[in-house]
C-alpha cells in the first residue's frame, strides 16, 4: 500500500517538475529570443531555423544609438583605415554613419527617448506613490461621510480600459497644449496609477496600529510630523511595493505614449517599433533597443522581489 502511494507520489512530483519546466521555457523563450537577437549579426537574425550558437557582437547597439545609411559599393580602404573601432563595425556591416558638417556622428533618437522614459516613469511614480500614500492615510485614519463611496469612486477610474478615453483625452490635451510634453504624460500616468496606489497603500496603512501615531501626538508632535516620522518608516515595504507596480505600469505604457507624443517627449515603447518602417528592417537593432528597455524593470523588480510578493499577498488581498 505504502509503495503504491509513494509510486503515485513520485509520478505526480515528476509531472509537476515537467509542468514547471515547460512553463519556465514558455516564459523565458521570448526573453531569450530578444536578448540573443540583440547580440546577433544582422545576417543571423532572421535565419530559419533560428541560430542558437553564434559569436555575440556589439554592433546592434552601435547601430541603435546612431543614424546610418546603406553604402553603395565598396568602402574606401583609406576611410576604413582611419575609422574608430565602432565605425569599422558599422562599415563591416555595409553601412556608414551619417555625419554633420563638423564630422560628428549623428545620434539616433533612442537615447533621448530612453531618458524621456526614465524622467516620466520616475516622476509619475513618485507623484502617484506620494499622493496615494497621503490619500490612503486620510482614508485609513479619519472617518468621513460617504467614505466607501469615495473609495469606490477612486477605484472606478480604473474600470474602463484606458484606451476608451484616449480620444477625448487627446482632444483635451491638444486644447491645453499638453500634447508631446513631459508634463502631459506625467499627469496621465500619475492619474492612472493613483487609484491603484491609494488602494494598495490603504491596505498597508490599515495594518499599522493607530497607537503609534497617537503616542506621537501626545508626545508633542503634529499630525504631519507623526505621519512622516512614524507612519512612513513603518510602511516602507508598502511604499516599495506600490512604487514598483506604478513604475512598471508607467514604464511599459504604450498606447497613450504613442498617441500623445511624437518626438520631444516620446518614450521608448512607441519609438522602438517606429524604427520598423524606416527603410530596411534591422531586427537586431530593434532587439537591442528592447533589450536595453527591459533592463531597468528587470533589475528593479529583481531587487525588490520580496516586497513585491508581500505587496501582493498582504496589501491587496485583505478586505
Amino acid at each position: 500500500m505504502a509503495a503504491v502511494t509513494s509510486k503515485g507520489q513520485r509520478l505526480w512530483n515528476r509531472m509537476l517538475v515537467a509542468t514547471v519546466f515547460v512553463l519556465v521555457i514558455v516564459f523565458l523563450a521570448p526573453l531569450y529570443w530578444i536578448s540573443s537577437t540583440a547580440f546577433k549579426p544582422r545576417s543571423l537574425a532572421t535565419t530559419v531555423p533560428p541560430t542558437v550558437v553564434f559569436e555575440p557582437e556589439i554592433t546592434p547597439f552601435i547601430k541603435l544609438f546612431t543614424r546610418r545609411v546603406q553604402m553603395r559599393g565598396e568602402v574606401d580602404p583609406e576611410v576604413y583605415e582611419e575609422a574608430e573601432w565602432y565605425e569599422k563595425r558599422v562599415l563591416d556591416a555595409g553601412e556608414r554613419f551619417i555625419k554633420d558638417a563638423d564630422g560628428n556622428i549623428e545620434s539616433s533618437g533612442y537615447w533621448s527617448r530612453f531618458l524621456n522614459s526614465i524622467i516620466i516613469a520616475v516622476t509619475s511614480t513618485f507623484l502617484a506613490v506620494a499622493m496615494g500614500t497621503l490619500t490612503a492615510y486620510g482614508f485609513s485614519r479619519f472617518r468621513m461621510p460617504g467614505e466607501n463611496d469615495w473609495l469606490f469612486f477612486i477605484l472606478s477610474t480604473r474600470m474602463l480600459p484606458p484606451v476608451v478615453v484616449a480620444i477625448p483625452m487627446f482632444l483635451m490635451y491638444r486644447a491645453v497644449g499638453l500634447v508631446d510634453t513631459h508634463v502631459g504624460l506625467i499627469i496621465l500616468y500619475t492619474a492612472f496609477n493613483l487609484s491603484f496606489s491609494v488602494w494598495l497603500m490603504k491596505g498597508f496603512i490599515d495594518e499599522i496600529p493607530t497607537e503609534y501615531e497617537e503616542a506621537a501626538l501626545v508626545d508633542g508632535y503634529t499630525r504631519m510630523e507623526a505621519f512622516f516620522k512614524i507612519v512612513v518608516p513603518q510602511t516602507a515595504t508598502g511604499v516599495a511595493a506600490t512604487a514598483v507596480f506604478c513604475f512598471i505600469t508607467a514604464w511599459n505604457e504604450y498606447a497613450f505614449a504613442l498617441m500623445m507624443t511624437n518626438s520631444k517627449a516620446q518614450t521608448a515603447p512607441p519609438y522602438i517599433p517606429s524604427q520598423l518602417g524606416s527603410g530596411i528592417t534591422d531586427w537586431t537593432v530593434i532587439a537591442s533597443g528592447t533589450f536595453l528597455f527591459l533592463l531597468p524593470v528587470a533589475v528593479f523588480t529583481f531587487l525588490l522581489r520580496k516586497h513585491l510578493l508581500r505587496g501582493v499577498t498582504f496589501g491587496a488581498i485583505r478586505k
Partner: protein
Amino acid sequence: MAQIKLENISKKFGRQTALSDLNLDIADGEFFVLLGPTGAGKTTTLRLIAGLDAPNAGTININGENVNEYSAAERDVALVFQYYSLYPHYTVRQNLEFPLRSKVRRLTEQDISASVARAAKTLRIEHLLERKTDKLSGGEMQRVSIGRAIVREPRAFLMDEPLSNLDAKLREILRAELKDLQMKLGATFLYVAHDQVEAMSMGDKIGILCDGHLVQVGSSQDIYNRPRDTFVATFVGSPAMNLFDATLSNGKAVVIPGSLEIPTSGEAMNHLRERAGKVKIGVRSEDILLDSSGPLEGRIHGVENHGVEKVVTLRVGELLLRATVPARTVLELDSPIRFAFNDKKLHCFDAASGQNLIFGD
C-alpha cells in the same frame, strides 16, 4: 503638576453613547483609578483628556484652564497605552528621546541625554538603552513605555490598563513600582483598570464607571464598604457580594419564609425598621460566619481552596451563598452547617433602582 476637571462630558460614536454627562475631579498629585467593565467608557475618557478625541459636549479643564481646543501636543499630558506602542523602528534610547525632540520643547542635546539617563535610572532600564524595541520582553517594553511618559515631566499621566498584557507575577511587581513612582514624582495619575485588585491596591481614589456614567467615586475603603448601588457592590470584591431578594415587613427581611429571615434590629439594618416592600440584601462573603450556634442553617454545596482561605458555597433552599473561611476549617460536602450574618455589615438595596438604602444619599 496638574489638577484635572471634567464637566458634563458627553461623547458619542455614531449612534452609540460612550459617555454621558460625566463629571470628574482629579486633585493635584492624586492617584485616581477609573474602574469599570469593558466598554464602560474608561479609555474614551482618557482619550478625551489626552486630546486624541473631542467630546460632543462638556469642558475639560487642566489646572483650571479649558483645554477643549488644545491639540494633544499642547495639553502636555503623557499617555501610556495598553499595547506598549513603542516606535518599532527605534532603539529604546530613541524612543525615550522622541518626546523630548518635539518642536514644542526645544531642548539642548545635554538636556535630552540627561533626562533620558534620569528616566532610565528611575525605571532601571539603563542596560536596555541601545536595544531595538522588538528585542524586549513584555515587562521591559512597558517599562520603556512608562519611561517615555516620565522623561518629559508632563503635567499629568494617563495610563490605559498598562499592566493588563503582562503575566500575573510581573503585574504585581510593576503595580508596586508604579505606585512607588507616582509617590516619588508626586504626579497626578489617571489610571484606567478593569481589574479591581489593581484599582484597590493602587488608587488614592477610585471612580467606578458603568455604561458611560460615573457611579461612585471614593477611596477603596469607601467603595468596598459603602457601595452606592448593586453594580458597585457586585463589581468590586472577590468573590462577588452575595445578593438576594427579600421582602421587608414587620421588622424582618424575609428571604425564604421560615428558613431564612433576617431581623432588622441589627446595627446596619436598624433604620430600615419602618420600611416594607421588596429589597435586595447584600452580604460580603467574609461577613457570613460559620458558627455552630448561628441562627441560620444550610448545606455545604461546594468548596474552593484558595490557599490562605477557602470559599464555601452554602445552599439554603434554592439560594446559594458564598462564604470565605480560614483554610484550616474542616468542611464536608453536603453536610448541614449553621451560620450567621455579620449584622453590622449587611447591605440593603432598593429592588427596583438598585440604590443602597443604608448608605445611599
